[in-house]
């Protein structure tokens, strides 16, 4: 969603910076030649710079809202995305299963790799011991499994 500031953005300055970056990315989608894009980016920067010195916060917030609105209304239908970034073509294409999946193997499956699982169990014990030494024992009531 282009009209929502990025996660973790809190201050007004951060919101403006976020808007500026998203607007640049939107320009990239429209003007794919680098020199043309640079020209348009300078024009965009100029529009932001003109209002940089505004001290009246009410007006600044209003301008930010207008900027978000304009960005939303002119967003490119096919944004230019890197393949592995969110929404890109190769996003999460290669899936690495998490480590805990191995704990749910059937005992018969585990029996194929006796040495590995023996060492794994040993390491789990050592890790729990290390954890308890560092942070204390866990409350039994809070255990879910």
């Amino acid at each position, binding site marked *: 969603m282009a009209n929502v500031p990025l996660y973790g953005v809190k201050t007004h300055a951060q919101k403006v910076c976020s808007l500026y970056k998203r607007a640049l990315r939107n320009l990239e989608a*429209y003007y*794919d030649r680098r020199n043309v894009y640079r020209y348009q980016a300078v024009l965009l920067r100029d529009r932001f710079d003109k209002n940089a010195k505004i001290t009246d916060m009410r007006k600044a917030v209003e301008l930010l809202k207008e900027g978000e609105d304009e960005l939303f209304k002119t967003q490119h*239908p096919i944004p230019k995305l*890197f*393949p592995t970034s969110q929404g890109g073509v190769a*996003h*999460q*294409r290669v*899936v690495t299963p998490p480590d805990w999946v191995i704990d749910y193997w059937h005992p018969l499956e585990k029996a194929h790799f006796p040495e590995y699982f023996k060492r794994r169990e040993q390491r789990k014990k050592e890790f729990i011991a290390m954890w308890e030494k560092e942070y204390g024992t866990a409350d039994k009531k809070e255990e879910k499994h």
Partner: protein
Amino acid sequence: MNNMKYSICFISFFFLFMMMMVNFFFMIYFIMNDMVILMEWEIMSFNSLSIVMSILLDWMSLLFMMFVFLISSVVIYYSKSYMQSELNLSRFIILVLLFVFSMMLLIISPNIISILLGWDGLGLVSYCLVIYYQNLKSYNAGMLTALSNRVGDVFILIVISWMLNYGSWNYIFYLEFMNNDWEMMMIGSMIIMAAMTKSAQIPFSSWLPAAMAAPTPVSALVHSSTLVTAGVYLLIRFNMMLLDMFFLKLLLLLSGLTMFMAGISANYEFDLKKIIALSTLSQLGLMMSILSMGLPDLAFFHLLTHAMFKALLFMCAGIIIHMMNDIQDIRFMGGISLYIPLTSLCMNISNMALCGIPFLAGFYSKDLILELVSFSNLNLMIFFLYYLSTGLTMFYSFRLMMYLMVNDFNLLSIFNLYDEDYIMLKSMFVLLFMSIISGSFLSWMIFSYPYMIYLPFNLKMMVIYVSLVGGMLGYFISNMKIYSVNKFLMTYNLSNFLCLMWFMPNLSTYGLSYYFLNLGQSLLKNIDMGWSEIYSGFGMMQVMKKYSVFYNVYQMNNFMIYLFSFIIWMFILFMMLMFNN
């Protein structure tokens, strides 16, 4: 497994290539002797209703099989390198082989039940191949593909139940002499609907660009040359029945619009594979429309030549995507002809064949089609749809070529691009050879009908005019200057509409599911959890409870109730005795 000398890829390639050769010689033999073989194996006979498994071998099925075997063999050879880092390579190859098997079942059967087997197999395997990369995008695309194709499967199932009336499902026997039968017309309409889903004609066309989430070899085999032409092939087989039908005129309009819509959307698209998919959609529209004008042999001719150069185009796209580290957006690309000259050569030749540049594969079929369109008695709208789409083909091909090869490289300031190995290139050269010669050899050997075409000079040159205009437009829009005004932003709403395929993906995903989910929710609230609950579940319990409380009174062993009921009973008895006489 990849390091073995005879990997699964090489064995499959060898097997399929040998099958292609066998098919080729049989095809020549069948054509020379004008032979047809029909084999039937009766599975069950019941009240003169026989379910048979039949195989029809004639020049048409053998020729199509030969092309499918050729493309699948080189695609599998190509995947050895393309899918090199894949962990489940055997699964991939087995899925592709299953796909080839389903395709064969579809091609050789003159029987609607065995067609359903092949048809459903195609749908299922293509679903498995689209979701081969297991990310969210692939899952969504796979669902869209599978459900759109499911509509066609249901139509085939309805056709099977309609054909129960004839006592057999060998449709090939009924085509000619039941031309004016109302039931046959119903069957024909449903076959057309089924073919429209498989070949992604207009109401169902959103799945084809979405299916580009599949690995590129799959796109080269499945979504460009074979699966999507299954619908066209089915209609070619059914063509005798379809003459003089109103529905066919509707098909002409819809396929013409598909051709036009796909051509326009390809000009707005930036995803390399989606551009090629949209051009496939445009060519499918061309095949369908020429078929609905009553020229099935031309549709078949274009189907075959198109299969060659479109598979090649996808394979080139695969090499480019590999080289660019999975980037498919053409805005990142440019100037690649300096780094991968051989692939660029293949890409350019297949693009030119697609545009119908003389003496390449596409020319022989496309030019004949367009001249016959000019020749036949059609209205102005269809005429314009054809010629505008031809111009648009040139338009997007030129744009793509400019973006890929002429403009500057646009991703990094330091880069090192190169062809990876000869495995992919070798398999591409087979198709390169075919996309140069297949048009001429098919037109000299097989489709050598003496069409007498007589046109005015300007109408004859119309193809060249629209191609030149399209090529120039393609050059201009890809050549962006600093001071040029962005036309996309000026016509934002219209461009959005054209860019997103006339909002068809939205209509067939959100559009459909929103209303049906709403309806489902209101049905759930009003019927399932409302009225039917009152009348069956909860309400019945209330009634039972109420009456059981009431009847409890009788079970309290109250002497007065027994006495009272005894008196009433005596009274009834008395009255009966009185009035009986």
